[in-house]
């Protein structure tokens, strides 16, 4: 037997094993891929196709009308209310993410001190996050409505004549930001707390032995250690903030005027109030694109973090 034949014999079983392994993996994966395709990709594909039609459920014959395929996309370039909603979304996302990271960080550091008080409070901080979003919205609706709010009874008793923030154009978005921060800071807190619990104590001990104050330990040791975690938590919250809906639906209905009308709320009203399915599909595709870019950033960040630790 020549060299060629021996090499072929040696590679033969290897190829067979590799192909069998490959086949096994695909066998396991395929049901998941089929479900994913049916549940996620097909609707997205339908959404994409629909975005090229003027589909309106109230107007027959618009479902597969491709006579002006780019009209929706042209329209969204000049739709000032959409542009406003994107701007509102940007303000809301930036403010909520920053506040949730700050609040989550501060409380995570406090909880990490593991005093009896902090241990007792740990679970209670999670309550807003585990409440159904609609319940959170109703809680804040009650708090913000002067005629039924215990807060306003107190204000009245103190002689303060406060306005309702959800009907004041200057405060409505801030009211949403406060409620959203209250609801979601426990998420960042949990992630940061998990990271803190994994942090080696030696560095902080060494710094303290060198005479560093608690503030310096936090600033120069703890925060740099949490940088990656903060980034990941921030990106997750950023993506999630684009989905803010129940708070706006219950508290302000996008108003007063359009000061709290974010993009997905605008899509909702176009789609479900007026049946402009084709147009809302086009707007949704833009939003999907934004979320995809952000998701890509999250994946890159998480992967990069993995390499650092690897």
């Amino acid at each position, binding site marked *: 037997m020549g060299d060629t034949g021996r090499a072929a014999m040696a590679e033969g079983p290897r190829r067979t094993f590799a192909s069998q392994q490959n086949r096994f993996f695909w066998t396991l994966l395929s049901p998941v891929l089929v479900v994913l395709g049916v549940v996620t990709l097909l609707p997205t594909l339908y959404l994409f196709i629909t975005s090229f039609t003027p589909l309106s*459920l109230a107007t027959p014959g618009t479902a597969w009308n491709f006579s002006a395929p780019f009209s929706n996309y042209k329209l969204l370039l000049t739709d000032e209310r959409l542009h406003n909603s994107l701007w509102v979304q940007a303000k809301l996302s930036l403010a909520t993410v920053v506040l949730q990271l700050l609040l989550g960080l501060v409380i995570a550091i406090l909880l990490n001190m593991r005093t009896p008080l902090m241990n007792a409070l740990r679970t209670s901080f999670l309550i807003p996050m585990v409440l159904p979003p609609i319940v959170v919205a109703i809680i804040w609706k009650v708090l913000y409505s002067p005629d*039924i709010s215990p807060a306003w009874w107190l204000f009245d008793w103190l002689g303060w004549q406060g306005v309702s923030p*959800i009907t004041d154009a200057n405060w409505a978005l801030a009211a949403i930001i406060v409620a959203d921060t209250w609801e979601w800071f426990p998420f960042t807190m949990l992630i940061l707390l998990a990271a803190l619990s994994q942090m080696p104590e030696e560095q902080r001990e060494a710094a303290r032995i060198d005479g560093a104050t608690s503030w310096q330990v936090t600033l120069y040791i703890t925060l740099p250690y949490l940088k990656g975690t903060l980034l990941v938590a921030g990106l997750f919250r950023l993506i999630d903030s684009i989905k803010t809906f129940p708070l706006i639906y219950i508290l302000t209905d996008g108003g007063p005027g359009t000061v709290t009308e974010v993009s997905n709320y605008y899509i909702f009203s176009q789609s479900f109030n007026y049946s402009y399915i084709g147009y809302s599909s086009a707007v949704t595709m833009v939003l999907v694109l934004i979320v995809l870019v952000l998701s890509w950033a999250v994946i890159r960040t998480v992967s990069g973090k993995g390499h650092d630790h690897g």
Partner: protein
Amino acid sequence: MTRFQDRTTAGALAQGKVKRRTILRGLAGGGIATVLGLKAPAVLANSRPFEGVTLQGACFQHVFHEHVKAYLPEFEEASGMKVQIDFQAFPVYNQRMDLELSTRGSSYDFINITFPYSGRWVGAGWLHPLDDFIADANITAEGWDADDFVSGTRAPFFNAEGQTCGFPWEAGAMMAGYARFDLMEAAGFGIPETLEEFEAMNRALHGKDGFAAYVNDKLHHWNFPPYLMNFGGGVFRGAPEDLMPILDTAEAAEAAHYYAALLSDYGARGVLSFTDDQALRMQLNGQANARTNAMAWVLPLTQSPDSKVRETTRYGMIPRGKAGSFPGSNANGYGIPAEARQKEAAWAFIQWATSKETFRKIALERGGLATPRRSIIDDPEYRQRLMINGQDVASIYLKVLEEAGEGGYMKYRTVPVFPQVGDKLNKAIERIASGQMSAADAMKAAQSEAIDDLRKAGIAL
């Protein structure tokens, strides 16, 4: 789909639970006829033709449905069916039902056809025509009398072919309800007849001990148009034929400025987010005085047992403007979705809920006086019931219904694209009342956005 394809009834027939002939006889002269107040052969009086059927309905929250619920056990007992009704707040209901109907859903056997969506839902063919049911003596009780409804109240429920797709449960007539007429009198005011007097009265009364001179709910697309028209403005150039919006006129800006000022200068705190219930509660507690809305929302001031202002309430027409008086009028009704599975049972329910006897009981026993049936309105006992605190409220009610019917100025509200334009009115009023824009700019923006939206709907402008 005909009534013979009714799945649940068919299923019940197949299982021998109920015989079709029994249903028809029962409907014609049996237990249901008894609760309809019609004479029925004694042998059939106790039949329960829909035994085992559960009827699913959907309605928006309204005091009328509270009255219906109070008498529902009688109907369930007579018919044998169980009636379950989902209630949602008005805007939520409209959104959900629009989606349900547009996707040809069959979740509900009967629904509430809301006035602003009537043109859209009826026009799109999403509701089952009822003419065959009405004409069929086997399933429509003799004496139920479709012609007894005030003619204008049925108009929103006719489709382009003239078929009936619903029956009204409310003849809404907008009027002004003043909860604290005692304070008005003390300040030297009577019932305001003009918008100038109305503003002067609000200015004089507002702000004392947190008291609000004016209150209303956030559905400005319903509350604002009477003011818009009183100032000489309008929503469309010539609905239903010419749907060009006319929201950017000087008259529209003037009206919007006036109405937004009522809310921002004389309104209750947080009024821009108020639902109907919130606005009503403020008046019932005597915390707010004036509200201009449908009679069903201002009558509880004197009819509700919870009212603290029964003796101090007075009613009036919405004050007239320089162009005259155009009080809103509407009709909300019941209909059957085109894909509903239990149409016969649904029709039995609608017959009962809109019968003379049910309306009479609701009006005289529970104070639900916004009735669409002429025979009830003409009833001396009903007229007496609407003599409230020395005022003949029935005359205000009939005047509004007649003016709206003859003037035809409510047509703007039943065109299929009104919901889109109504949303622009909501936003404009909010923008003005919250100080974001001047009235002229807000109404120009509303005009521009309305035109964009109508073009999206394929309307040639």
